[in-house]
């Protein structure tokens, strides 16, 4: 019959072996994860570097000088003039009673003067 002492020793031995084995597996896994992490960090650094270079390129492509040239070649639009920007409240609504009654003013010297001023 196995004595208690032997049983305890055997148990200790088994537990210790398991722990050691477990630890080795853990170590291996951590090693693998560490390698993976290193690789990911390296990839991130490369990506960050590439993004940085791309940003610089994008900045270079967006220089006003180049955009002006492109706009001139491809868009039939001129620079916006100050008088082209108006307040929303200046928009004439048909049902608005206070809107300028052009019918009465059209043809008047004041109206002509106004139009002339804004066309200059």
């Amino acid at each position, binding site marked *: 019959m196995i004595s208690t002492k032997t049983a305890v020793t055997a148990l200790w031995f088994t537990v210790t072996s398991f722990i050691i084995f477990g630890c080795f597996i853990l*170590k291996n896994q*951590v090693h693998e994860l560490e390698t993976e992490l290193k690789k990911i960090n390296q990839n991130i650094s490369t990506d960050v570097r590439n993004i940085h270079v791309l940003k610089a390129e994008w900045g270079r492509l*967006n220089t006003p*000088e180049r955009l002006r040239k492109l706009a001139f070649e491809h868009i039939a639009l001129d620079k916006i003039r*100050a008088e082209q920007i108006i307040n929303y409240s*200046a*928009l*004439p609504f048909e049902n608005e009673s206070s809107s300028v009654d052009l019918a009465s003013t059209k043809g008047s010297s004041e109206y002509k003067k106004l139009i002339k001023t804004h066309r200059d």
Partner: protein
Amino acid sequence: MLQVGFSKRKNNSYDFKNQRSMSLQNSLFEETYSAGALEICRKRVNIAIALFFAVYAVIAVRVFMVCLPHGIEIKLPEDETQQREILIKAPISRADIVDRNGVVIATSLPTVDLYANPKKIQDAKDAAEKLSFVFPDMKYDDLYAKLTKKTSFVMLKHDLSPAKQSEVNALGIPALEFLTSEKRVYLHDNLFAHVLGYTNVDNVGQAGIEKFMHKRLTESTKPLELTVDLGIQDTIRQELLAAIEKFSAEGASAVLMDINTGEVISMVSLPDFNPNINIPLGDKALFNFTTLGTYEPGSVFKTFNTALGLESGKVKVTDKFDATKPITIQRRKISDFHGENRWLTVGEILIYSSNIGSVQLVSRVGRKDQRKFLENLGFFAPLTDFEIPEKAKPLFQSQKNWTDITMATVAYGHGISVTPMHIITAFSALMNGGIYHAPTLIKSSVKKPSKRVISERTSEQMRPLLRDVVLYGSGKKAEVKGYEVAGKTGTAEKAVNGGYAKRRVTNSFLSAFPASNPKYALLVIIDEPKATKETWGFITSGWNAAPTAGKIISEIAPQLGLKANFDLQAQRAHIKAMQ
């Protein structure tokens, strides 16, 4: 001692003959030693157990240590941003520079430098030949001389492109090595030349922001945010280039400032240079007129003269001054260019840019107060805190030599030389309600110290006076519908050999807009403009600097998000007419 204990047991077991005598001895022995020996035994066993435990503990710890990966350090970051910073390291060591909207205007690109160890080189002739083939800009003789030097390090070429690096690698010369490096790149070439400055091959700032902020740019990789605006800077530069061409001018400069903060939104000085290309020192293009160019500002200074009069309390807006005839001070005759030859109000002195009127006005205040006022506006000190190193000290007479004639000439902007940056900074204070903000190029949440230099009332009085200059005076060509430009022209003859050159002028137009609630100040300077058909032979500021400023304002005001203050009725009529 232990042996004694064991011998006792031995005697008890095996020596039967002398059992009696032994038992006597034993009893004696037991009486004497048994208690002590047992105690000793127990202690020794305990020590042995402890030792075994210690050994096993060491082994156990060691087993765990072996099982854990080497060099693992568990550092818990304090917050998420720190964690991100640990993971993502900036690819460059010199921080980017961005404009007020976050657009990158200066950055560094990772590159490699090529160097050689001549001691390791086997065939210098062959290596020099191959390298000169890869780099056509490098001469064989120079390369050979470098490769035969008795040293272990010789720099061959900075900033190789990846293609060139691979070509050098393909040569298979073991003595050639690469150093990781970075190259400063200015994405918009000339556009911010005088703002940014440039760096040398070792990435050390040599001028502009690059020099002044070198420490900040190398200590942190966080982008440095400036107050300048890319779009506005470009618009202003384009208009100045057009003006140079139109008036065959020697140069042109402009500064746009936010009058409520002192932030410089645009700073252009032409001619300029491309900081990506090495420019020989002493080149005219390296001169930043806006901060280095001390010049006699001429009539734009009448603005400060008028403010001085109003602020002193000795002059009222409605006061009239005798400008009927030239005045003589210390045997020097002061007259007007196209004089009105009548009594002029304070407003008219500005509208007609009367020298006589300005002198009459300042005479009422006195030279002591004039000096104090100008000193308070910062005209006697360099702009120490402004974030570029190229700064000039204003030139002016000492207190001892500040005589009546100095007082008189300074009233209309002669006899004192200041930089455009001084003028616009002081002018901003006149327009914003009287608070002087030191000019700045760095966007910061920490506000720079400011001080009150004139009363709010004087500031309010100045605005319509300058608005009238644009509506009825010399600044008419600067008018932009809806943006209420207020300003003052200035034509200053250039000082040459102790006198003034007649047809060589530095023209300025100092303005603020919109006059009813000024937000921005703009100073446009054109250096030596020539007369054209369009200007009817005139070279005065109203014919070149003022229209240039007008054009600039009409383009930048919408960009700055300013609403045009049009007459509602007129706007509606205009819309109807377009339909």
